[in-house]
């Protein structure tokens, strides 16, 4: 059975179908990339999968169970974590605290219980942490440090610095660390290398490879196609809200529909494939969200 299953998912913004009957499966351990021109509906699709936005029609199934009707914060509990296209770290909080927030839904004190009682319990546990809560916090800190060490010396020396003081690339790294702290089953990365230079991009590539070796399921939006080709087990191509192609990276790269979506109608004389060498289609434009 597929880990994540999208069935004819649509999102209608006042007559415009930002996501138009998109279906695909995601299997455990797979890395799947979603590519397509700006405005193709990729980020909207991510917002639907992570609960930030509700589909107009269609269903999302995790382990065969529908995610419909859940609040945003419940998606993380089910094991779906994400990063944001433009980076959303908690600016006035330290690097370590940012990562710990990622582990929020795993904390004992944050668990649901009887109405009202759960609130009193959380307040009291904040005032007088029980030994198990204190131990849990220490353990979460330890795990946060382990996650941060995946980025080498990029973030570890800056543990107590506020996130607003970090460089752009470090903020993106921090976001990935925060997402990992929730111990997700599926990690959604929205343009993790946007605005990064080649060295930094290569680092992210190596990082995602590490995650792959740990058997994490990854859904990736990315404009840098060399990265996509290298990492993906499968590629999904979107244009105008629709899924126009799906397949192995080398199959997709030669699909005429894909070439048309990127370059317009076929030129009279043969044009180079959009996927040749280092071509990438990253632009600074915003995607509908």
């Amino acid at each position, binding site marked *: 059975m597929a880990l994540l299953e999208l069935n004819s998912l649509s999102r209608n913004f006042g007559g415009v179908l930002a996501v138009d009957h998109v279906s695909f499966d995601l299997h455990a351990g797979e890395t799947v990339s979603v590519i397509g021109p700006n405005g193709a509906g990729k980020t909207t699709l991510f917002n639907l999968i992570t609960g930030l936005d509700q589909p107009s029609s269609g269903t999302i199934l995790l382990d065969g169970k529908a995610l419909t009707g859940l609040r945003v914060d419940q998606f993380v509990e089910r094991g779906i974590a994400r990063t944001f296209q433009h980076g959303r770290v908690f600016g*006035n909080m330290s690097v370590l605290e940012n990562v710990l927030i990622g582990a929020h839904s795993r904390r004992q004190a*944050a668990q649901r219980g009887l109405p009202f009682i759960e*609130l009193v319990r959380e*307040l009291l546990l*904040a005032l007088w942490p029980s030994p198990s809560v204190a131990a849990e916090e220490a353990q979460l800190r330890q795990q946060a440090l382990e996650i941060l060490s995946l980025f080498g010396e990029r973030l570890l020396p800056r543990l107590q610095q506020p996130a607003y003081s970090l460089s752009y690339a470090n903020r993106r790294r921090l976001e990935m660390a925060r997402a990992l702290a929730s111990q997700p089953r599926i990690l959604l990365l929205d343009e993790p290398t946007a605005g990064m230079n080649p060295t930094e991009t290569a680092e992210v590539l190596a990082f995602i490879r590490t995650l792959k070796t740990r058997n994490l399921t990854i859904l990736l939006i990315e404009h840098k196609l060399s990265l996509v080709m290298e990492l993906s087990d499968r590629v999904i191509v979107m244009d105008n809200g629709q899924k126009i192609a799906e397949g192995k990276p080398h199959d997709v790269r030669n699909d005429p529909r894909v070439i048309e979506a990127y370059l317009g109608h076929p030129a009279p004389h043969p044009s180079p494939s959009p996927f040749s060498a280092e071509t990438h289609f990253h632009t600074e434009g915003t995607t509908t969200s």
Partner: protein
Amino acid sequence: MEDFLRTFFDQTVNGLVIGNIYALTAVGLAIIFGVGNLINFAHGSVYMVGAYVGWVCVTRLGLPLPAAFGVVVVVCGLLGMLIERLGLRSLQNSARIAPLLATIGISFVLDQLIQLTFTRAPQSFPSPLPNTRFPIGGVSIGVIDLLIAATGIGSAAVLYLFLRYTKLGWALRATAQDRDAAQQMGVNVNAVNQTAFAVASILGGIAGMLVGIYFSTVYPTMSFQAGLKGFAANLLGGLGNVPGAVLGGLLLGLIESYGVSLFGATYRNLFAYAILILVLLLRPQGLFSRQRQAPPEPLTGTFVPNSKPIHVPPWAIAVAAGAALLLPLFVANPYVLQVLTNAWLFSMIALSITLATGTAGQTSLGHAGFIAIGAYASALLTQRLGLPFTVALPAAAILTALLGTLLVLPAFRLRAHYVAIATLGIGEIVNQMILNWDWLTNGVMGISNLPPPSFFGREAVRIQDVYWYALALLGIAALIQWRLVRSPLGRTWRALRDDDIAAQSYGINLNRYKTLVFASSTLIAGMTGAFTGHMYSYINHESFTNTISILGLTMVILGGMGNLIGAVVGAVALISLPEFFRVLVDYRYLVYGLTLLLLIRFRPQGLLGTV
């Protein structure tokens, strides 16, 4: 039937007349919101200044009414331009709530200047108009009614023509739609803003003067109500929507007028606040806007400026606490002790506000209401149920936490600055309830003869005892809050403050943590209210006014948002400095207003930095 019709007609005329005033105020707010994306809290003060300028012209200088009109137009127009310069232009690169706070500071300053010049007492404004009334059917309409209606309709028409057919009007509308694009097309946005503020303030000033004539009186505190009602009218018609503001004003006037005739005059203000809250919750885009969704966040961005807090070493805190504790042994002056006791109580208020506003980013302008709930709860528990103070105080605090959270609960779906407005309305509603629920609160009479604070049978008879009790309570509140803020719960609150969208996406249930923060914050507010009530031994609906909420917020900003030590430092500074520099006592609120203005401009992160 005849009587009913006559009353109905009278109330309709009355409602439309008052509604015209609200419309004039609301239109000004709408123009400013449109071009500047700013909720101008100083607008009520401009209205009050207009009323006083008109009054001076007519009663002191003996000018004829048209001349007085002219002077009001000039003075208020200039005032509007000054507000734009101080409150908006110089803050363009600050946190986006800064202009809103600046206008609160300006309103403090204006209100206080008028009070210092003309005293707090209401001034009689004999009508310069002939006393003729024109009979229509069985009822009659006065000259002032006609004048107000004519001014209202006339200004609306002039404004319409101005916006529609003049170049400056086009520039104004263009700026309102897209500031950056207008600038790119060569519109001088600063000039446009200044014009908008001038036009808005002229309308506000005229409204104030007409109200002065209508009710034959002017008084400094007329500003707050006027501003809030103008805002309610504006919200009713859709924020920033000029025709909507006119309709909203008329509608609010009618609702109030009919409501008063049904329920009695003391309910007058309740309608405006109830409408404010209902519209915010049910139809935030206003009644007359076609837009389906709430307008985009007018002033998004975190309230809290980025900063590194100044680290206060624990020994310094211990020394300061020790000194505060031992002080009454060395200083016998009851005045000094009373002032410091007030400072401790205000420190608790500031702590309470900084927890919601600074730590969790839920800006509250309504904490006075929660303090009042605590005070009344404890008063009623001791007087009606005969509970000892030792039991009544924590019980009142818990009751406040429950009631306060329930009151704010509907506002949880609002974000950023709408929360500030909603809490402002909630605070006022609490006050109106206290005024109107005679059976529970004794209404205007208030509750007197409250027993002095006493713990475990030890009554605070001497001022020293009151001082120590207040200090002890502050210590307890600070300790509780310190533990909360540095716990994982505090971390969660700060995540909610910094980015609520990201916070949700990382598993934080916003409603749960808003509930927890308001419960904790109002618990401390309730505790403070209970103690204060018993200290005064008398409370009524005017004991805890909105000024306390804003003063508390100023203290919080002074010390640094979310900063516990900062809250105490801010409270002690703002309470004791004006008292100890005797010259300043009369100018206290002026000092508060200027402090707020200067801080926002030059040190938005406060003295000790935000946490």
